[in-house]
């Protein structure tokens, strides 16, 4: 037990320290030497997510439901792991549009709608109230636990004491004061509160340190390590059950995960620190893993503390405050005080940021639009409105904090911390369909968003808020048990008879289904206004448009009008700086009676949006810019035209790529043509050469015969024999050539039939026996295998075999010629292999020799190459390919050549005949 004086003194010193840090942070920021603008501080400021609900409530929740408390931190971890898809887009859009709050964000998406921003603000304020109450309750209870430990704190803590004796009241007052001092010192054009961020980051360090300190004390000083603690806990049935999944927690687990994922995006204070206070998108990249790491550390000792508390403390001790009572029970007053300061920092940071975020919304989206409607106030004609704005914000902060206090005093005292927090989560989760839907679906309309949000919120209020009021006796509990007007199907916790679920899950199922359902269906049946369509496009295509500013004003205001308007809301100095900078950067006039161009009007609207929200800024600027706005349809046309241009250029790009590809193909075709041309020339040269040799021979012998009639008969006969032989050779050449030409042109007559290749091969070998005998060639034949029928032209096949065999005989080693013929039946065709032991063929000629007139280039030893037309292999190739077969050669120079012919069994007679 600590004396209340000590606790109060420590609290005051701590809050004083916070003030100094915030003041110092602001001072550095104003001097342009901010140390707040770095990823670590940004990450720590996001850790405002861990409030006293975490600091105290997580332990309580772990003591009741085991590891289920983790869901509240695993959800945000999932969102941050996927930062690239959702958070980055929100950030990019908010920077481009100078978004200052979540209400601003949502209303901007749906055409800067005032109705929507009002509705979002109301929901945010109502939804956050229980959450603020939770923090005040935590401060008050922790104070009580610390000061009266040992006397009973078993009963629910209801502050029946006089309001000025209530520590919650003083906490609320102090926090409101802090919020006023650092949230509204001036109206900033982009709503950055660097001093506040510095203080929040510091508080995040304090609460982490405090919780770790308690955790380490419990695990390593009270027990000999985590293992020991868990071992002891597993031996007591009550605590052992907490180490495993609770049997009935399936749907609740899922619900809590979904809720916490939504909460990190939609809680106004999270939106404030993640999106609005962000100064550099790169900080988000660091936070993507650093914030989950913070959450992990924060939660590491929660379950151990809970288990230790359950094992050691009497039953009446409130598990929500084990963080304090466990050290106290061990006589560690100092550690308990450290823990108390940690809890205080967790509570205060939440209340401060929430109050500032909500006051921005209340001022920009609730009060200013209302005041603008009251024409008798002549707001648009007042000189300086900065004072009024500041007053509204300060009043809003007080209002927000004390709404929380009232809820705490009257309704929130009985529940566990976590349950109060979840009511808040469920309220702000209603923003998810229109927020996430609006980021990725252009079709969502304002009417759809309004309907969905209203339906979802109504269900939330009926199924969650009403029962909590009934619990605290504000309304008749009969409503809960019997249903509205006595209709059982209207029971708030079992709507339409759906009574299998816990109240929270039940509320979420109905509200989300109705919310998203109405949003989608109504959107599909309503149409968007012009501005809505523009904003939808800008939001959804945030990454594909660079610098996507739309200028939608047609000039008709003077520059001075605009200047004065901005001056009224931003103050003399800030307006001066903003306009001067704008003028210098665009090289344009920024004071005077001249007409402002559209860009300047848009600039002014953005400036105003930064301090009074998009919807109000729009109204204010239109009050000055007297002329017509460019008709929205016109703007839309421009936008659509831009899309067309982008699309068009993309198509052009694609076309040029196609052209390039076509050009490459053409080049390749051209190269091939050139090669063919060269081959043709070569062919002609060869043909001429081949024809000339016998012709020359014939001519020269004829001339000799003509010139020398006195030649003896024997020589005459020899010469005539040569002439006949050469003529025959010439005829054979011409025949072969004609044959090949017919084959190539496809004019050849084919007479296919069922042929046994073995028989053909045997007959051919017999016919060529004389040839082999002449050369003393050794012929080895091995024609094995089963009989197979091929559907080919028998004569042509014989031609091929004759050609290959005579070639082999010709090219075999002249000294000791050997030829080896093999035939083998394969399962799908017949393979003939004919080898010789001659000089062989070089690798690079293996394919060439099947060309017309090509021959093995080098014949060894300068021996005269065997004569031949040079067309035999070309004809053979044509024939074999005509039968869908294959002919190829394998050879190593000096080791002979092996020709292979493979003819497949035709699938059907017809295909072979073709």
């Amino acid at each position: 037990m600590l004396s209340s004086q000590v606790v109060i003194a420590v609290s005051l010193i701590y809050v004083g320290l916070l003030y100094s840090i915030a003041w110092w942070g602001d001072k550095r920021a104003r001097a342009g030497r901010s140390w707040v603008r770095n990823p670590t501080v940004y990450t720590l400021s996001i850790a405002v997510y861990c409030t006293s609900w975490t600091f105290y409530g997580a332990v309580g929740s772990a003591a009741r439901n085991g590891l289920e408390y983790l869901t509240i931190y695993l959800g945000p971890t999932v969102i941050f792991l996927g930062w690239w898809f959702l958070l980055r887009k929100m950030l990019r859009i908010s920077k481009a549009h100078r978004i200052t709050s979540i209400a601003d964000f949502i209303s901007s998406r749906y055409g800067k709608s005032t109705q929507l921003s009002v509705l979002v603000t109301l929901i945010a304020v109502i939804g956050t109230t229980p959450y603020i109450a939770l923090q005040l309750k935590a401060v008050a209870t922790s104070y009580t636990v610390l000061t009266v430990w040992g006397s009973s704190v078993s009963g629910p803590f209801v502050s029946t004491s006089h309001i000025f004796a209530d520590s919650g009241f003083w906490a609320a007052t102090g926090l409101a004061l802090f919020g006023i001092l650092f949230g509204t010192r001036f109206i900033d054009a982009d709503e950055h509160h660097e001093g506040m961020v510095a203080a929040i980051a510091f508080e995040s360090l304090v609460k982490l340190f405090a919780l770790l300190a308690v955790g380490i004390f419990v695990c390593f000083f009270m027990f000999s390590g985590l293992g020991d603690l868990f071992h002891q806990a597993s031996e007591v049935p009550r605590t052992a059950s907490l180490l495993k999944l609770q049997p009935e927690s399936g749907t609740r687990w899922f619900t809590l995960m979904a809720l916490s994922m939504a909460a990190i995006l939609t809680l106004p204070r999270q939106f404030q620190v993640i999106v609005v206070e962000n100064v550099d998108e790169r900080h988000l990249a660091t936070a993507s893993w650093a914030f989950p790491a913070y959450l992990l550390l924060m939660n590491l000792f929660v379950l151990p503390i809970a288990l230790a508390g359950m094992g050691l403390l009497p039953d009446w001790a409130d598990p929500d405050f084990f963080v304090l009572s466990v050290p106290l029970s061990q006589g560690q007053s100092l550690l308990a005080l450290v823990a108390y300061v940690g809890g205080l920092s967790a509570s205060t940071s939440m209340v401060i940021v929430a109050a500032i975020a909500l006051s921005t919304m209340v001022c920009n989206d609730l009060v200013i639009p209302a005041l603008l409607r009251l024409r008798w106030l002549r707001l648009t004609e007042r000189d300086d409105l900065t004072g009024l704005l500041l007053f509204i914000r300060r009043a809003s902060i007080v209002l927000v904090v004390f709404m929380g206090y009232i809820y705490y005093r009257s309704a929130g005292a009985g529940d566990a911390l976590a349950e109060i927090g979840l009511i808040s989560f469920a309220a702000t989760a209603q923003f998810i369909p229109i927020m996430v839907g609006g980021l990725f679906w252009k079709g969502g309309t304002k009417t759809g968003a309004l309907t969905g949000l209203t339906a979802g919120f109504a269900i939330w209020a009926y199924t969650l808020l009403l029962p909590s009021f009934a619990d605290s006796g504000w309304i008749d509990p009969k409503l809960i048990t019997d249903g509205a007007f006595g209709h059982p199907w209207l029971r708030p916790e079992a709507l339409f008879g759906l009574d299998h679920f816990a109240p929270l899950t039940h509320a979420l199922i109905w509200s989300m289904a109705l919310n998203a359902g109405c949003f989608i269906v109504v959107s599909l049946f309503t149409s968007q206004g012009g501005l809505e369509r523009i904003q939808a496009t800008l939001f959804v295509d945030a990454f594909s448009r660079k610098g996507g500013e739309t200028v939608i004003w047609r000039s008709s205001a003077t520059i001075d009008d605009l200047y004065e308007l901005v001056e009224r809301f931003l103050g003399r100095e800030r307006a001066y700086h903003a306009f001067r900078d704008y003028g210098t950067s665009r090289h344009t006039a920024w004071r005077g009676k001249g007409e402002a161009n559209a860009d300047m009007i848009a600039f002014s609207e953005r400036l105003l949006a930064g301090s009074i929200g998009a919807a109000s800024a729009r109204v204010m600027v239109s009050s000055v810019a007297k002329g017509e706005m460019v008709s929205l349809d016109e703007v839309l046309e421009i936008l659509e035209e831009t899309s067309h241009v982008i699309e068009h250029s993309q198509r052009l790009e694609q076309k040029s790529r196609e052209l390039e590809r076509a050009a490459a193909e053409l080049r390749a075709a051209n190269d091939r043509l050139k090669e063919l041309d060269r081959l043709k020339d070569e062919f002609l040269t060869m043909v001429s050469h081949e024809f000339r040799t016998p012709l020359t021979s014939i001519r020269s012998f004829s001339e000799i015969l003509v010139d020398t009639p006195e030649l003896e008969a024997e020589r005459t006969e020899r010469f005539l024999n040569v002439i006949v032989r050469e003529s025959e050779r010439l005829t054979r050449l011409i025949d072969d050539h004609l044959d090949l030409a017919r084959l190539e042109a496809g004019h050849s007559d084919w007479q296919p039939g069922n042929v046994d290749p073995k028989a053909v091969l045997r007959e051919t070998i017999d016919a060529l026996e004389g040839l082999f005998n002449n050369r003393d060639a050794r012929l080895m034949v091995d024609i094995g295998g089963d009989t197979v029928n091929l559907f080919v032209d028998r004569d042509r096949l014989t031609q091929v075999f004759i050609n290959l065999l005579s070639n082999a005989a010709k090219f075999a080693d002249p000294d000791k010629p050997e030829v080896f013929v093999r035939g083998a039946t394969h399962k799908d065709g017949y393979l003939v292999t004919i080898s010789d032991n001659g000089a062989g063929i070089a690798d690079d000629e293996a394919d060439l020799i099947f060309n017309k007139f090509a021959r093995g280039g080098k014949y060894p030893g300068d021996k005269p190459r065997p004569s031949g037309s040079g067309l035999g292999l070309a004809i053979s190739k044509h024939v074999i390919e005509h039968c869908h077969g294959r002919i190829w050669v394998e050879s190593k120079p000096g080791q002979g050549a092996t020709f292979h012919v493979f003819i497949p069994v035709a699938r059907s007679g017809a295909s072979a005949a073709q």
Partner: protein
Amino acid sequence: MTPPAKLTERALVLALTAFLAWVPPLVGVFSLDGAVFGLPVLFVYFFAGWAIFIALCAWITRKLRQSAQQQGDL
């Protein structure tokens, strides 16, 4: 260098995997008696898994930033 499209796909799969790993029914699979390193199985499953996801996220994020910087997108 890994193409950006592949990196973003990895980032998406990481987040989806984390979600699936942390909701029933998968959570129930690890709700076992006994101990790993002297600690309850479920406790180790959550905290070790959490640390691994954080490390993977840091790694993918670094790559994403590098590729985004090259395109001048971040």
